[in-house]
């Protein structure tokens, strides 16, 4: 009995511990970039209990509330990165072409300093993705950058829809075809992996549906079908519960996945990277698929050689919901600048450019009812800039999540670690440009190397 009490106590404590903080705040006289409803000058935002409660002029401060003077500053929605690998202890479970049974949510590292650095760049939410080694990778986790906690659960964005990583092209064919000598070795094989997986998931789901129906009959004595986490997740894609986020580059493979999805009645799909998305923009728009792209990365591998930095503009003007992501520990610090490049390459207007890093990625992650714009009722995820965020001279001043200030340039110290690794002796790493490594392939590169070494034996 005592044991049970202790267990209940631990469970409750854990549950209570997973409650994130919410705050109250009054932001005064800012130039508000709502993104969805135009600009509001000299306007206040009242935040109560982590939500935007009121937007208007001359809002008087409720007693005891912290007031932030935003006179002469720009206030925009917290930036959302729809493709990131920060705050993760593991990225690629590269051991099978299908690993839908794994989940990056089980590998969240709240100590990762990258979370703070992202906050210092105004990023409040990131999509902590599985890597691109497998045709069907693991489930991903949408995190809020509530830095300062030891509890991974606190970082998870409560209520965010489930998402899963898919991958096309060179990465899965290199890892599995070349590395392991199993399907897929070609883009034909990648399609075959999807069709087999979806068909098996259909059968799996049918078997369970039939069982659950039969069970209602009290005289039913049959056995339950075998449980498979792998197929259970894929069945979730078929029912629309899990959103596909697919690593992709070439136009032909993007078309292929849309065809496969049509055949299986899957509607919710976000193409990631999608460097050649601009070539099939009309098809993407007609399907209702969206695109999460780099601002200007190209030529680091063959399948991105025929890219153009005008991708964001072409996709946007063709009616494709488009976001700009980082996929990088470095780029995530200046996504506002990456969005600005869409004005050089294709002259998007300010709202279109800002939407690329706010409301558009929010839609792609299925969290647009709560985030991605400054509107009453939404989560108080806000960033305050000196100078317009699309200007090269912009500097993030304050980053707020759920009404709580997580970054304040006036209260920023050199060392922002919350955990110091005592075993770390070499404390200097020269990261270089950071653009030449495909971050999606971390862990998988090592795996490939091991395959090669063992193959040589």
């Amino acid at each position, binding site marked *: 009995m005592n044991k049970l009490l202790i267990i209940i106590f631990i469970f409750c404590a854990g549950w209570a511990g997973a409650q994130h903080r919410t705050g109250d705040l009054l932001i005064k006289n800012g130039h508000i970039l709502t993104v969805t409803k135009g600009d509001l000058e000299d306007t206040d935002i009242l935040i109560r209990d982590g939500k935007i409660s009121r937007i208007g002029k001359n809002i008087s401060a409720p007693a005891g509330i912290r007031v932030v003077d935003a006179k002469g500053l720009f206030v925009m929605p917290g930036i959302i990165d729809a493709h990131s690998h920060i705050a993760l202890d593991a990225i690629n479970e590269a051991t099978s072409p299908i690993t839908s049974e794994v989940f990056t949510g089980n590998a969240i590292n709240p100590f990762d300093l990258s979370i*703070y*650095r992202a906050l*210092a*760049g105004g990023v409040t939410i990131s999509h902590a993705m599985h890597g691109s080694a497998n045709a069907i990778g693991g489930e991903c986790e949408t995190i809020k950058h509530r830095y300062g906690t030891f509890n991974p659960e606190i970082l998870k964005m409560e209520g965010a829809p489930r998402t899963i990583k898919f991958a096309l092209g060179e990465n899965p064919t290199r890892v599995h075809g070349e590395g392991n000598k199993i399907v897929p070795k070609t883009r034909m094989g990648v399609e075959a992996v999807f069709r087999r997986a979806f068909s098996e998931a259909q059968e799996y789901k049918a078997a369970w549906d039939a069982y659950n129906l039969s069970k209602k009959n009290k005289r039913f004595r049959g056995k339950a079908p075998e449980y498979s986490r792998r197929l259970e997740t894929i069945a979730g894609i078929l029912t629309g519960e899990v959103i596909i986020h697919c690593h992709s580059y070439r136009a032909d493979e993007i078309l292929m996945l849309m065809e496969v999805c049509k055949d299986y009645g899957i509607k919710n799909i976000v193409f990631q990277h999608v460097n050649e998305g*601009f*070539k099939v*923009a*009309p098809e993407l728009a*007609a399907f209702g698929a969206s695109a999460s792209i780099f601002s*200007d*990365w*190209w*030529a*680091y*591998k*063959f399948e991105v*050689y*025929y*890219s*153009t930095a*005008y991708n964001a*503009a*072409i996709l946007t*003007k063709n009616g494709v919901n488009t976001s700009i992501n980082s996929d990088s*520990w*470095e780029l995530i*610090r*200046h996504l506002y*600048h990456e969005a*600005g*490049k869409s*004005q*050089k*390459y*294709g*002259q998007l207007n300010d709202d279109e450019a800002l939407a690329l890093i706010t409301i558009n990625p929010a839609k792609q992650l299925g969290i647009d009812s709560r985030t991605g714009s400054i509107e009453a009722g939404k989560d108080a995820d806000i960033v305050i800039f000196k100078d317009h965020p*699309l*200007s*090269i*001279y*912009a*500097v993030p001043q304050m980053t707020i999540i759920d009404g709580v200030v997580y970054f304040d340039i006036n209260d*920023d110290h*050199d*060392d*922002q*670690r919350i955990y110091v690794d005592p075993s770390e002796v*070499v*404390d*200097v*790493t*020269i*990261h*270089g*440009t*950071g653009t*030449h*490594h*495909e971050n999606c392939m*971390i862990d998988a590169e090592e795996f490939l190397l091991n395959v090669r070494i063992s193959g040589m034996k």
Partner: protein
Amino acid sequence: MIKIFCLRCSFLMVALLIAGMVCAQGSKGKTGLFAFTNAKIYTVTNGVIEGGTLIVKDGKIEAVGSGIAIPEGAEVIECAGQHIYPGMIDGGTKLGLSEISSIARTTDFSEIGDVVPQMKALTAVNPNSVLIPVTRLSGVTTVIAIPSGGLLPGTAALINLYGYSPKQMFAGFEAVVLEFPSTGRRGRWDRRSEEEIKSASDKALKQLDDTWKKVAEYHKVDSAITAQKVKDQKLDFYPELEALLPAYRGEAKIMVEVNRAEDIRKAIEWVTENNVKAIFTGVLEGWRVTEELVAANIPVIAGPVLTLPAREYDRYDRPYANPGLMHEAGIKVALKTTEAENVRNLPYHAGFAATYGLGKEEALKSVTITAAEIFGVSDRLGSIEPGKEATFFVSDGDPFETKTQINQVVIGGWLVPMESRQTRLYDEFLERAPGLDK
């Protein structure tokens, strides 16, 4: 007045029309006698000229100023509302040496061997690289192509980004590259132990000293032969030593890539002891050792600016602030992207440096005249002055801002075609034909 329009999509053309700007026609360059009129000219060395005229003749800047007479026969290029800046110089790239970075067969920056200073980047520069037009459209007109991947991986070459042979592109500066032995990690993937890192660094340092002793011997023999003026006597063929001889004798600069504070200190010691004229590149932790750098009077080419801090306990913005902190201390600072395909982002690296302490004016200098001075080509490049090469660009505003459009690039008097594969893809696919229905 002649107006020539490049074939870009309609709204870009409208933008150009409004700006009253013109650009070179088709995919061929064009040279001749040109008068760029009514521009706001940022000379960099002699202030800003409002409503200025810039005359280009025989590939050079013939005259610049306000109220300058337009020579007879000159093609007038109306630039009202436009700015003119000197072409930007990137002090460290792989441009021309790398096409697709992950495909080894398309890269030519790393030869076999640790001590191969005789390997010349200029030989391997591919003038037809698809990356080059993509780069120059952003106003980056001149870059240094740098070999890498060894202790002395080769000889870097400064090139202008227009021409059909390395010779046509050569911009008048070459230097042996030294990758100073590093005691830091080389990236996230570098999982070597402290001992392994130290031992690799010690070994490389010894190899450097051994090489330098050999050059000293080579210098003695070579000097003796020269002094005797013995005609038939020739030195045995040691290309790597021959390549190092000018640097050893202090006749040529050497480009030293070094980043960690401790390594920078060691590198300063090494170049001082050996009396080597050095340019330090990278210099990520330069802000930690400004005093030593100032005392040694070593110019630096800092970058990339858009990179992560070297240490977990450093402020998030240290790499952005580094060029400004070094400049403030009195160090001569140019910039580099360390890129190949995205050298086009040089103005944005400069913009971040400007924002985080360097200031707009110094940042502009760092990618123009300061770089030219460091490379010893400031008599030809780096500012808008009569007698210099006509290498500049026309834009509708501040080139560091992402909103700004660059409307014409001129390199060595050539109006460069304002297109690349990336702009052609834009023209083709913005409104694809056929669209959905065929």
